């Protein structure tokens, strides 16, 4: 009997309903100390583990429960509390990778047994390790200068954190600038968005702790929580600080461009100031459209124009990052039946906001685009692009459009009395106190028709909307002078691009996925990176600001720690190093140096991807907590007990993105065959051909390699990871392994559904090609 303890969690049925815990208990009792509990993560459960460690003087612990991403730290603490090194713990993920993804009880129990077995085998090679502390950079980066980013930056700066605020546009303000009026839950009156926003923008500009970088984009982020290095590319503004905002330049500029700040309802010049309250309060040249005719230079009395200015690059170091990259509007021309872009008087709510905005194209007068006449009948169409599963549609509710329509209906009822407004809706969504608003707008005489508009037609200059009044089962064609489309919200292109650069997980809808939907709503899948506003999902200003405060508080508490305890997961040198220096070239983090004819590795710089390990010709390098012996033990363990005719496929997933995606597959209860066995590796660069070969020699039917993202891979960029994986694939082919049995997915996994699909395809592919092979069965170590 070993002095290993195996603790089996029932998770209140989450595990035990599918996995026969009693059978496992009986099985492992023959070799280990075994205890079971309803909730090992509870204080009582933890106490059980601690008592058992003390009572049996355990030398190592296997906890078979949920993903290490949930309670790994809790269980490690159980070990350290009793004086046992916390790295002598192995977690068998029998919930996310077994009970939640396998329906059949027999297969689930068998798989759980194998997962625990693999953990026991790995535990035999565990080494005691100690964590160390690193300093945290006392600065933060906020990406995106809309209302969420502005709020987050101010909160951080107010708390003494040096904060960089990066905005792509030449002014901060974002969509809040464009929407003109805002609604609030307690007042039935629309407030001026700028009145709330403008003072905040000025605070940003003047705050000593904020460095504002407009016309700028984050191009790369490397490092980990507490110590990120960020590259920011700044487009030339081409107008320097001497600008007095007199506007002479714009008067003479011959180039007209559609004005984004006015939702393209009017034009601006190539040299322009986005809006009167813009911050910075300066003109800017839109270099994509400027023809460099020089007229503005001649007109400028302050000599502020620098036509030849070049883009610049700024590098900053920060401890935490807040993403506030916002949303875009659904393009209604993708639903041509609604007439947008074909019929002049079909506009979006945002365009309506510009039309009724005092600084908009009609100076606040409600006039329709075709002829400048005052519309007396307005129809608003809800759910344009939202709750829509047709190609390019958004499957979700954009959550604010009902309130936006009510806001505009209310405003127009107040300021253009006599205007007849009808709102065609699928479901009116005014949660909580917003219901007051709905009631208020009903009182004003706005008509609500329960039906989604089918088509907008124009006959003899008049608009007609086909809709069924579903509550009366009556199909009608309603005439209108102006049709307003309530378009949905989708993640901005910037959000998606940046998420891919940072390697943070996205939801199925491509919004930034929060770490925990209830408990950690402003954290992302990567420690030290937080999210707020519409980058995380559709929401209104109230909730964007709340989440911005939450995100900045998270960032503050991380930075406020001053130092972070770092897991000792770096590469290390064994004694056989001859100082050849090949590994140095393989480390993009510059963590390896040759000192006294032997390599030394700086654990602070090493990101623990493991690329150097098989680069070493003498096998002198290894990786803490993912040693050769541990990795080999995992492979052996996962394939042990394979019976004739059984299929087993090993999936190596990187421990950050790939593994987290697999956890999400479990949390979503997406099923996959129990033949798929997941082994976590710090990065796929840790894998050498010998590991793949070993898996096949031990009877694996297929090997799947899923790489989440390059940031964790020894600082390698995407292309070099790809070329290394190509080499791996080629070497494996040279070993005589059927290439169809090895699948490498080099691509970024945007969300877990994609990984699930690939795992299913892979397993199916292996099964279809798999002819029962006696040779394989003979070779397996059963």
């Amino acid at each position: 009997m070993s002095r290993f303890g195996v603790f089996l969690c029932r998770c209140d049925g989450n595990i035990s309903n599918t996995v026969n815990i009693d059978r496992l208990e009986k099985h492992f009792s023959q070799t280990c100390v075994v205890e079971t509990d309803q909730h090992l993560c509870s204080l009582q459960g933890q106490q059980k583990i601690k008592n058992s460690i003390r009572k049996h003087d355990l030398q190592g612990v296997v906890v078979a429960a949920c993903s290490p991403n949930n309670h790994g730290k809790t269980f490690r603490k159980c070990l350290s509390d009793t004086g046992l090194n916390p790295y002598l713990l192995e977690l068998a993920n029998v919930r996310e990778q077994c009970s939640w993804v396998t329906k059949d009880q027999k297969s689930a129990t068998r798989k759980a047994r194998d997962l625990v077995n693999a953990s026991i085998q790995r535990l035999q090679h565990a080494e005691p390790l100690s964590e160390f502390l690193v300093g945290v950079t006392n600065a933060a980066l906020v990406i995106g200068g809309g209302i969420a980013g502005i709020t987050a930056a101010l909160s951080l700066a107010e708390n003494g954190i040096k904060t960089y605020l990066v905005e792509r546009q030449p002014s901060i303000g974002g969509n809040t600038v464009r929407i003109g009026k805002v609604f609030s839950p307690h007042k039935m009156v629309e407030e001026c968005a700028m009145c709330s926003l403008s003072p905040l923008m000025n605070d940003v500009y003047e705050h000593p702790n904020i460095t504002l970088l407009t016309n700028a984009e984050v191009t790369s982020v490397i490092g980990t929580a507490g110590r990120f290095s960020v590259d920011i590319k700044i487009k030339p503004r081409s107008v320097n600080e001497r600008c007095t905002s007199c506007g002479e330049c714009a008067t003479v500029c011959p180039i007209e461009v559609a004005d984004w700040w006015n939702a393209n309802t009017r034009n601006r010049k190539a040299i322009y100031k986005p809006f009167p309250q813009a911050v910075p309060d300066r003109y800017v040249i839109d270099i994509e459209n400027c023809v460099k005719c020089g007229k503005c230079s001649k007109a400028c009395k302050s000599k502020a124009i620098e036509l030849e200015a070049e883009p610049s690059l700024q590098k900053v170091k920060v401890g935490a990052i807040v993403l506030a990259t916002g949303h875009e509007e659904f393009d209604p021309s993708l639903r041509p039946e609604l007439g947008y872009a074909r019929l002049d008087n079909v506009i979006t709510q945002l365009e309506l906001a510009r039309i009724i905005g005092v600084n908009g194209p009609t100076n606040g007068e409600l006039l329709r685009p075709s002829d400048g006449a005052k519309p007396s009948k307005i129809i608003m169409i809800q759910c344009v692009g939202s709750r829509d599963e047709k190609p390019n549609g958004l499957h979700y509710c954009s959550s604010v459009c009902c309130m936006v329509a009510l806001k505009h209906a209310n405003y127009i009822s107040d300021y253009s009395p006599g205007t007849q407004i009808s709102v065609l809706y699928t479901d009116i969504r005014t949660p909580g106190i917003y219901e007051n608003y709905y009631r208020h707008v009903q009182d004003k005489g706005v008509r609500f028709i329960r039906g989604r508009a089918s088509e907008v037609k124009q006959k003899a200059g008049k608009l007609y909307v086909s809709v069924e009044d579903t509550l009366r089962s009556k199909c009608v064609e309603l005439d209108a002078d102006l049709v307003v489309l309530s378009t949905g919200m989708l993640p901005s292109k910037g959000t998606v691009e940046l998420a891919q650069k940072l390697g943070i997980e996205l939801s199925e809808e491509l919004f930034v996925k929060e770490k925990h939907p209830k408990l950690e709503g402003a954290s992302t899948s990567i420690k030290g990176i937080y999210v707020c506003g519409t980058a995380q999902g559709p929401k209104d200003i109230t909730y964007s600001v709340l989440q911005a405060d939450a995100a900045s508080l998270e960032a503050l508490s991380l930075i406020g720690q001053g130092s972070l305890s770092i897991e000792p997961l770096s590469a290390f040198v064994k004694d056989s190093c001859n100082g050849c220096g090949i590994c140095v070239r393989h480390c993009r983090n510059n963590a390896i140096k040759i000192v006294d004819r032997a390599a030394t590795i700086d654990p602070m710089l090493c990101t623990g991807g493991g690329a150097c390990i098989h680069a070493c010709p003498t096998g002198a390098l290894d990786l803490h907590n993912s040693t050769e012996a541990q990795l080999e033990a995992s492979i052996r363990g996962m394939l042990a007990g394979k019976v004739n005719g059984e299929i087993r496929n090993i999936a190596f997933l990187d421990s950050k993105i790939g593994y987290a995606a697999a956890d999400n597959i479990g949390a979503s209860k997406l099923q996959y065959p129990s033949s798929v066995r997941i082994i976590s590796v710090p990065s796929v660069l840790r894998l050498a051909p010998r590991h793949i070969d070993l898996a096949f020699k031990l009877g694996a039917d297929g090997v799947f390699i899923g790489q989440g993202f390059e940031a964790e891979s020894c600082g390698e960029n995407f292309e070099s990871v790809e070329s290394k994986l190509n080499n791996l694939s080629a070497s494996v082919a040279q070993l005589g392994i059927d290439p169809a049995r090895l699948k490498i997915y080099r691509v970024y996994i945007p969300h877990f559904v994609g990984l699930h699909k690939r795992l299913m395809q892979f397993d199916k592919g292996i099964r279809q090609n798999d002819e029962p092979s006696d040779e394989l069965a003979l070779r397996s170590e059963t």
Partner: protein
Amino acid sequence: MTLEALISSRAKLPERLYLFKSCVAGTFYPGIERSFRFILNSLNVDYFDDPSQSSCTGFGVHCGMVPPQTNLTLNARNLTLASESGYTNVVCTCPTSYANLKECVNELSDTSSRAAVNDVLKQVGLEYNGGVTVYHAAEVLYVIKDSLAERAKSSLSQLKIATHHGCHYTKVFYDQVIGGLWEYPHLLDDICTTFSATLVDYSERSLCCGMGFTNLMSTNDYSAVTSLRKLESILADKPDVIVTMCAGCQLALDRFQKKYERRLGYTAPVLNVSQLVAILLGADKTKDACLQFGTINTGSIVNKLEAL
């Protein structure tokens, strides 16, 4: 995917075409297929005009008269004839055939359906093995429209044209429409403008022509009311010609105009896009395009064609 990419992603000229003949066209407007052959011949496009192909039975299917298994197996036979001949790009002149055959190709990718179908096909010495793609003739014309325009002997510069895209082309496999999104297709419009036509837009662009299958063969109001709605909208801006891509639509729009000529107060001849293009390429109006089958006189169009 951007709008442009979505539209252009399917616009590629298929080669080695299997000409799939339509029973409605063959009965009422023989000029549609004669014209299409004339166009393909003029451009030396390689195609197979297989007499052995049966009807797709789509008309009967939509009326609920033909059992699905008969439909699927007969079309599996048709698709097999195409694949065995090496002419694997099936081109339909009828949108109902187009949709029906596409649906059969989809269903036959299911192994159990395929096995059941092959069980029957075995009796006639055939086996369905897939490998066939289905197109509509208008798609072919759309893709080669520039080469067609180069060979045109006359132009449409004097003509105002209104188009109607068949519902079974645009609304069944809506995500596979080329030339615009399914809710506002401009496949036919783009072909016409290549020949310098002026287009007339109208409000009931996406409305059914009124053909309506069982409705057309009953005494209810569907066909008459719908066709009138459609025609009143099309004729509002007085186009010289209505261009379609479906014999069924042509039947409804042509014959209902005749019936309600007085009420409408204005008529415009209805042509299939193949007929129109064939005439522009110099086809014989009677023998090839068979314009005499139209009930609304087509003479006005012929007079307005501008010689190049």
